[in-house]
Each structure stands twice: as structure tokens, then as C-alpha cells.
């Protein structure tokens, strides 16, 4: 791995005006297993791929409920993610204690981002090594945000992060314009389809993935195991059907050229520096 003298802490600018430590922290997000998020006009769906440390271990937790109207999916350092989720929960509780209303998703995301920025500018700290997909529903409707270790945050209509997320992203980029009016069922389906693109070791099943939903009159809920199974089964059924009809756009094979055109490495670092 290439190294230089400007990349050992986050308080050193490189001559090109970059901060390598932040970019490395963003690499940590890519090491985590994939998570995707997408929204319609009424709902937000987060779907995650869970890893198990060994055959004998349980699958890791990737999704955290923050409040009835909000939840997050994480990729990267789980411990960092838990710290942030605890912080977010506390903020939500505080807010509803004082105002008797749920905290705005955007405002909380902004706070988290500001918190993350502080870690990119102190010699005794390191950036958070975790990316958050925040899905929530508030006064202004459903929102999907991505919080980056750099302290940047973006509001997306659909997004994917984590290992091999580019494949999922490609799927979403192709389809996201149809999400606005999609039903919850369809959204979940799209989430699982896109997640599947990022899944390499084996099949998607109700154990290694989880889906969470939140939206209009729908408190945040995590579908795992048995509650998820029907959706996975429906997916498999449709998958089989799709093979015969419109398989072309969704087929993994079609992704290869796109992947080259926009490799994740090319896209992410400027994102840290920019806008």
C-alpha cells in the first residue's frame, strides 16, 4: 500500500489539499457489509446484509432503532455505530421529552454529521469509521440520509454503502425514478434485489439479511428471520419469473461495465472533499 508522510493523522493537510486519514476512514465503511436504503413518497426501507464472524457465531446487528420514526443501518466499525446510535437515541428522547414531538430526521442527521466533523479535526481523535444510512419519517415526509465519516451527509432518494455496494448502487440508479409511487412491498423488493447485487458469498436468506421499514403511520420496524422470510420467498419466486421476462437490466452480468466506469474508489474520495 502506498504511504506518504501526510497520512498518519487527521490534522495534516496533504499538499493537494486532502486529508488522507478521512479517506482511510471512509475505506473502513467499505469494509463493512453492504446496506442499502431507498424511499418512496411514504416509506423508507433499509436493507442490510449481515455477516457472521464464524460458523458458530450469531449474525452481527446492522440495524438500530433510534425512535418510532427513525432507524439507522451501519457499515464499518460496529462499535462506532453503536456509539452514534446511542447518541441519536438520546437526542430523540430528549426532544420528545421537551417538545412532545419526534425530532426532525434532518436536524438529527446534521447533529451527527457535526459530531463526526469534530473527530476529523482533532489531533487526539480519529474520524468515525462508520457510515450510517438513516431512514426516518417526520413532519416533512420520509427521508433517507447517508452520514459519512468525513462529517459530510447527503440526502438520497436511494443509496447503498459497504462492501461491493457499487453493484447495488448501479441497480438503484437504474430504478430509483420509479420508487416515488412504489408500494411498501415493492420498495422492500427493490431493496432486496439491490442488496442481492452486493451479495457474493451465497444466497440472500432470512438469516443473513434484515429489512427495516418506517413511514407514514408505520413506526420503525425491523423484519428479520421469520418476519422477513415471506419477502425473501417472494423475491426468489419473482427472481425465477424475472429470468424469463425482463432479466436483462437486473442481471448481475450487466453490471460489469458500469462498475468499471465508476469504480467506488474514484467516486468516494472527492466526495469527502467536496460540497
Amino acid at each position: 500500500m502506498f504511504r506518504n508522510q501526510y497520512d498518519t493523522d487527521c490534522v495534516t493537510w496533504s499538499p493537494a489539499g486532502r486529508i488522507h486519514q478521512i479517506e482511510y476512514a471512509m475505506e473502513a465503511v467499505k469494509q463493512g457489509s453492504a446496506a442499502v436504503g431507498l424511499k418512496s413518497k411514504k416509506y423508507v426501507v433499509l436493507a442490510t446484509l449481515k455477516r457472521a464472524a464464524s460458523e458458530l457465531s450469531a449474525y452481527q446487528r446492522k440495524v438500530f432503532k433510534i425512535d418510532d420514526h427513525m432507524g439507522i443501518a451501519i457499515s464499518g466499525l460496529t462499535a462506532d455505530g453503536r456509539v452514534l446510535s446511542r447518541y441519536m437515541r438520546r437526542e430523540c428522547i430528549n426532544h420528545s421529552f421537551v417538545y412532545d414531538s419526534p425530532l426532525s430526521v434532518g436536524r438529527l442527521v446534521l447533529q451527527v454529521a457535526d459530531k463526526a466533523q469534530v473527530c476529523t479535526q482533532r489531533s487526539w481523535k480519529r474520524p468515525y469509521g462508520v457510515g450510517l444510512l438513516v431512514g426516518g419519517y417526520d413532519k416533512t415526509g420520509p427521508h433517507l440520509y447517508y452520514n459519512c465519516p468525513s462529517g459530510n451527509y447527503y440526502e438520497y432518494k436511494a443509496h447503498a454503502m459497504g462492501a461491493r455496494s457499487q453493484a447495488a448502487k448501479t441497480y438503484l440508479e437504474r430504478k430509483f425514478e420509479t420508487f416515488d409511487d412504489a408500494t411498501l412491498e415493492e420498495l422492500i423488493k427493490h431493496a432486496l434485489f439491490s442488496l442481492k447485487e452486493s451479495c457474493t458469498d451465497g444466497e440472500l436468506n432470512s438469516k443473513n439479511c434484515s429489512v427495516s421499514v418506517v413511514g407514514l403511520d408505520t413506526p420503525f420496524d425491523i423484519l428479520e428471520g421469520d418476519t422477513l422470510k415471506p419477502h425473501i420467498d417472494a423475491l426468489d419466486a419473482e427472481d425465477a419469473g424475472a429470468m424469463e421476462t425482463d432479466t436483462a437490466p437486473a442481471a448481475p452480468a450487466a453490471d460489469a461495465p458500469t462498475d468499471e466506469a465508476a469504480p467506488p474508489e474514484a467516486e468516494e474520495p472527492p466526495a469527502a472533499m467536496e460540497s
Partner: protein
Amino acid sequence: MIPAPQKHSYALGPGVVAPAMHPEYGRAIQELNNVNYPKAGGQPFVVDAGHGVGGPHQHTQYPYVTGTSVLALKYKDGIMVACDTLGSYGSTKRYKSMERMKPVGKFTLIGASGEYSDFHYIMKLLDELTTDDYCHDDGQNLTPTEIYNYLTRVMYNRRNKFDPLWNSLVVGGFHNGESFLGTVGMVGTCYTDSHVATGFGAHLARPLFREKQYDDMSEDEARALLEDGLRVCYYRDKNSINKFQIAKVTAEGSTISEPYALITEWGYEAFVNPAAAAVGTW
């Protein structure tokens, strides 16, 4: 001693500080002032800890410049609030153009009876909150209910410190097609209703409201009823003057009228010689 800027958790808004900071507040403030401290975060449950920190204790143990009753009711298009413009000083009618109703954001209105300086302070807290909303510019502004709940916390927590804000507040607003009307007292007593009144008005005007107010009443009816309430208060509350403002909040936003006077009735025949029927009485 000096007017210290409010330090508060961004999560909770001005006047609201996390309890984790509270025991060692001085240190926490230092950390907040420190550039290195993240300006976000906080823990639950202590509202308005900005008080008595470091500096001397603040206690309004006595109200000085005070306003009397505030009356309010719901009607078809929203809510209507009214009060006079007198700032009493004991029983001196000292300031006669004191506005006791203020808008908070576009769709909420606060009316205050009690100590004016405390009301001023409360408005400062709320202005900080609304300015914050303005700056975020994300379409999320405080709703009347949120303001009401926030004020309840502020009043209650000051009471907990034996340092009450000496006010009874009326919070009225209109949001998402619904009227809101509530009131908060100096110890945090709060309730919402279709009509409310603070101070003397609770005794003098509310019986009228109970009889005549209904949520679908027209604006003219509502105004007439409210003016009846004001008139009764003016007849029987010595700390009131015949100079009133009436305000409403509807889907269009809030408006506060210019001060105006009510026609009062002093022409009853019996008033000429009230003791005529029983000579020797008063």
C-alpha cells in the same frame, strides 16, 4: 453578574440544558466555550439550567411590573386572544402601552400575564428557537403544541429551582388545520381547552365563555364574546384599563390589532343614586 449568553444543547434549544452537565455546570460551560468541544449533544431532563450557574442565584420572589388577565378562545377559523395593554406597578397603573401578546413564528401567539421582565426573558428564549428554525430553513418550524410543551418544561423547571418565572402564559396557535389553545402557569400547571383565561379572567370571563363559546363560532361572534369578557374584567379588575388588543391566529398566520377601547355602560338609572332605595346605605 453579567448577562451571560445562553448555553444550551442544540438538541433541546435555548434554555434547556442536559442534566449530565448540571452537577458540574461550570466545567461544562468551559468545555462548551472550548473550541474543541463538540457543539452538539446533551442528556435528558434538565430544562433551563442556564440559571444560577456560577453567577448569583436568580429569584423572582416578587413581581414588579405586571400585566393582568389574558383571555382566549377557539373559533371557526382558529383562535383569538385578547388582553389590555397595562403594565401595573403594584396598584400604580404605570405603563399603558405595554404589549403583552407576541407572535412566535408565524402560527403561534403567546399572551402573558404576570411579571413583564420574565415574559421578556421567555420571549428571548422563544426567539432563539425560531431564529434557529429560520436558519435551518428546512420547512420545519415549531408548532404551537411544541412551543406549549417547551414552555411547560421551562416553567416547571424554574419552579423546581424555587426560581419561578412569574407568569401565566396563554399559548394559542393554528397548525395543520387545527386550533391549539393552552395555558401554563408559574409552577408549570398546564392544560389545553377550548377557552382559557389567566388571572382574574378565570373567575370573571370564563363563566361567560363556558356558556357561549363553541368551537364553530364565527369570527364576529368570537370577537363579541371576547369583548364581553374584556368588558367584565375591566369593570371588576382594578388593575385594568380600557385599552385592549385583540389577536387571532388562523391559517393565514397571526395578527395583533392596534390598541382600541371598548364602549362601557355607566348609564343605568340606578347608578345615579344607588342608595336611593335604602337611604343610609352605601
